[in-house]
């Protein structure tokens, strides 16, 4: 019995990365946001966000290249602060949320670690039923104990996607073919 427990403990130990900590994205306290911006006619930026998402990641400051992250996004939670526009964005002209009920990002690898703790985060983004590789330029913001007995780490990242790559071909004009995604992620260590 004791031997089995030890074996199990050893297996558990070896099957997880030695020091990587598991974090859950703090969506309950809303210390994370998935924002987007797109040019309006080439004259200004239109910004919005996805209100509902969840995710988890592994991160260890000593071994950032071993980090992994998965984020699930509810595309129907898109919010550009205008109900009629949001209705249009959820329709089959854009996200078609009746048909494509989920969006997600799953990391595949980390490269180009930076001095401040940032890195290039490679992964597959699924949006509008299309899965494409994207690279998110990640900066580490900070890490440490919170005042309530927990431990947190947070990042900011951005990437740019072409709407056409994800099968969204509604014509918003030549200045509005790409969307920039801005991601702010704070994880609470489990």
């Amino acid at each position, binding site marked *: 019995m004791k031997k089995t427990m030890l074996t199990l403990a050893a297996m558990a130990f070896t099957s997880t990365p030695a020091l990587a900590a598991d974090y859950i994205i703090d969506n309950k306290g809303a210390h994370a946001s998935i924002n987007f911006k797109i040019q309006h006619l080439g004259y200004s930026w239109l910004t919005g966000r996805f209100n509902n998402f969840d995710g988890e990641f592994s991160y260890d400051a000593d071994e950032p290249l071993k980090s992994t992250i998965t984020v699930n996004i509810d595309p129907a939670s898109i919010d550009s602060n205008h*109900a009629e526009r949001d209705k249009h964005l959820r329709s089959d002209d854009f996200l078609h949320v009746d048909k494509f009920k989920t969006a997600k990002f799953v990391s595949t690898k980390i490269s180009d670690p930076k001095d401040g703790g940032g890195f290039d985060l490679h992964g597959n983004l699924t949006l509008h039923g299309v899965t494409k590789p994207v690279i998110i330029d990640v900066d580490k913001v900070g890490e440490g104990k919170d005042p309530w007995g927990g431990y947190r780490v947070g990042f900011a990242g951005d990437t740019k996607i072409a709407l056409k790559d994800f099968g969204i071909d509604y014509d918003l*004009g030549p200045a509005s073919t790409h969307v920039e995604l801005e991601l702010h992620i704070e994880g609470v260590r489990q």
Partner: protein
Amino acid sequence: MKANTDSWGASLIIVHWLSALAVFGLFALGWWMVDLTYYSDWYRTAPHTHKSVGILLALLTLFRLFWRATHKRPAPLGNKVERRTSGLAHKLIYMLLILLFTSGYLISTADGRGIEVFDWFTVPGFGSVIENQEDLAGDIHEWLAYTLIALAVLHALAALKHHLINKDKTLTRMIKF
């Protein structure tokens, strides 16, 4: 209250035909505007006009219902079944209209914005009662519109049937003051 009469009266006749014009106009405009491209000249004006006319029709319909409740109207023509069915159809049309006004209002005001009526006055918005209210209200608005148009066509066919087959005054008394 006026005594029971053989005439609808000029005001109700005008209101009836204005409503008919507005209902079919709103339907055509609504059906067309949802597929407009972003760079269309009508992308902003078509929904603005649709909402403005819709609000005005809502006010007209409220006035009409008030008038209906306070004035005598001509007795329905036709046999018992026809009188019953037409009574039911008319009530349904009023109900669909009210629900169309409500669902349309709930789309555009889901974020608390008001509805501007021809830059003339603004109907205030009260925000959402349910999540993604604009989507649900939009689906309901669309199906109610198809139902209302079907019923309005039936209503018109029935009037023609009274005029051409029964040769009674159903249609003419809605035209002549």
